């Protein structure tokens, strides 16, 4: 195609060298390098750090944040935010335990003191219920954001209080304990010698990554994040997409809550408080732009892992918790700074 106006000669990105350079300078690669360097340094400080056991345990511990961070990436890419994930997490945890303990199937009723119940609620059903409630909670966010046009930040600030409050109110701040053993398998057990959580992280990450990067749905999220009007004028069902991702966020919060309850074997209404900030930190560290339009699942995972490994590695190196969060804060800022600098230099955006 010699006569095409594509001025191939003038085009840096077409040459393989250019492509390679572009790849090497991509957000994810930079972050990955930063992470590797950090881990490398930490490894020199403690020989317990890069042991299989430790790594597996860390995988277990970061499950909740990782799972919630996936939908958060979607949401932030569309230029939204969900501050209520922590509260939904708590609500789902409570609903899991509460429905299991207090709901009676025949006669259908909410148990009260000395109430005779023939058929109790099966735990399986409670789990499903809890996750459904998570989805519902997410949908409520989504519905108001889309239909009533409440800005995401405000909406989820309000539901942050609302959902947490419901968790407290419904549970009357009592915690539910004593689940059957099979229930703990998920949170405390292994599969092929690897903690179940890690499998879940892998599965959901792959799904989300493909969903975001390879499908029309994913592409439309980027479009929405960059120019919502433009997206709507291009026939993209902006509202529906948004509803979906907020519901997805609620669902993952629910699943994370389930895993968490199964790991710590009790439910409390204050579970997951502050989760939102940890998740957002991981996502932005992962190179997702808080202004929307930019970001990737790979980046987010790197972000999650980096923070987790930092906390763990520093602790193993004998650094105490207060000093650790100082370092985490510094790394967060530094990483984003370096990345932004390189991105601008390479003229990517």
């Amino acid at each position, binding site marked *: 195609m010699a006569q095409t106006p594509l001025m191939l000669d003038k085009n840096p990105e077409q040459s393989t060298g250019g492509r390679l350079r572009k790849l090497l300078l991509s957000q994810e690669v930079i972050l990955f390098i930063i992470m590797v360097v950090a881990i490398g340094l930490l490894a020199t400080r403690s020989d317990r750090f890069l042991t299989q056991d430790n790594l597996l345990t860390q995988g277990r*511990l970061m499950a909740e944040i990782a799972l919630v961070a996936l939908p958060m990436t979607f949401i932030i890419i569309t230029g939204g935010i969900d501050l209520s994930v922590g509260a939904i997490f708590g609500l789902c945890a409570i609903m899991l335990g509460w429905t299991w303990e207090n709901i009676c199937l025949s006669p259908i009723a909410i148990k009260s003191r000395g109430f005779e119940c023939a058929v109790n609620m099966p735990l399986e059903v409670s789990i499903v219920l809890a996750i459904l409630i998570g989805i519902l909670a997410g949908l409520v966010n989504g519905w108001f954001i889309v239909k009533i046009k409440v800005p995401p930040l405000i909406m989820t600030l309000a539901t942050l209080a609302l959902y947490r409050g419901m968790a407290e*109110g419904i549970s009357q701040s009592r915690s539910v304990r004593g689940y059957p053993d099979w229930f703990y398998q998920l949170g405390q057990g292994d599969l092929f010698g690897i903690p179940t959580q890690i499998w879940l992280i892998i599965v959901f990450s792959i799904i989300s990554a493909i969903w975001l990067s390879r499908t029309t749905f994913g592409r439309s999220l980027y479009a929405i994040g960059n120019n919502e009007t433009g997206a709507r004028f291009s026939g993209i069902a902006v509202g529906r997409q948004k509803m979906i991702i907020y519901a997805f966020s609620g669902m993952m919060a629910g699943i994370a809550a389930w895993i968490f309850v199964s790991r710590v074997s009790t439910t409390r209404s204050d579970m997951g408080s502050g989760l939102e900030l940890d998740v957002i930190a991981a996502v932005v560290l992962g190179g997702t732009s808080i202004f929307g339009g930019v970001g990737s699942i790979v980046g987010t995972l790197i972000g999650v892992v980096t923070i987790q490994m930092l906390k763990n590695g520093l602790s193993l190196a004998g650094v105490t918790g207060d000093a650790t969060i100082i370092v985490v804060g510094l790394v967060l800022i530094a990483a984003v700074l370096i990345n932004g600098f390189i991105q601008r230099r390479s003229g990517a955006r």
Partner: protein
Amino acid sequence: LATVSLGLLPAAAQDRWDGADDLPTNPLACPGAEVEEMAEGEGEMMEMPAYDGGAAVDAPDLAGQPIVLVDVPKLIGIGYFAATTQGQQEAAEELGNVTVTTDAPTDANIDDQIAFIENYIAQGVNGILFAANDPVAIAPVLRSALEQGIHVVGYDANSEPDARTWFVNQAEFNGIGKSLIDQMAAERGEDASFAIVTSTFTTPNQARWIAEMQAYQENCYPDMTWLATLEAQEDNTLSFNQATTLINQYGEELDGIFGMTSVATPASADAVTQAGLCGEVAVVGLATPNAMKPYVESGCVQSVVLWNPVDLGYAAVYVMRAIVDGTLTPESTSVEAGRLGELQIVNGSEVLLGAPFVYNADNIDDFDF
């Protein structure tokens, strides 16, 4: 969604003060004897249940040898746990063959606390001291510590018994409940009406204490009336606002406020002071001396109930040492704890620090934590 749950409103159990848990209570006998003896008397009178704690699985025998301990309180950065740490260091120095470092999350967050303990298991320490953010949630990780031959001793906030070896109990819940109510009765009469400012309804210790207070009040001071319990997190301003709200709401009716945390108590005292109601509204509660000095000195608060957290930390280290040295076994009925002397063993696997301590204008300046 909201409406659904609001339908459940009446679900709030009314037979129970807000913020009290619903575990069984055993209120102590009504006044007569002195507070201290009562509590200890209790300790002895109780027929000894069997040891129900766990044990470290084939832990190396380090009797008499240096050991490395880690202390994981609920959180770091508050006066109370600064004090327990101080006590631990003191004990470590006395013993000479113990090194203990305190490390914990910066928020009282069970998830983080678990992560910290996991880290120290990986690091490989000889013993773990803990104050649990949640008795059940913390259990699995503690059990895995025991399995890996790490001794586990709790203090301040317990876990499920089998997840640790021993728990150093600062003062039995019913003891605290009793002395708080007695204080209130002493200051504002046996028909006082009072309100409570607590941290959150989910904090186990506070919930226990409130339950025990209720039980004790109901059978010893039936004429007292409980008005309300408000949550104030661990937050100064909120505690202050809540206390102020109570004062404004109940006006004359309110005779006293119970502060259930070292945050709520001083804040309530301040609210009373700033409302100019010192003497009319009593503030009774749990708090560290430093936090209360201004109010005790100004006379707005007569006395503060608390065990000595320094001693608590101190005892915890001695208990741990005793376990390692084999001098504290499931059969023991008491354990020797340095300057604290012999400590009683109660309810199976708990070491009782002693009776709650009452600070007042005379002695409060002797303490710095």
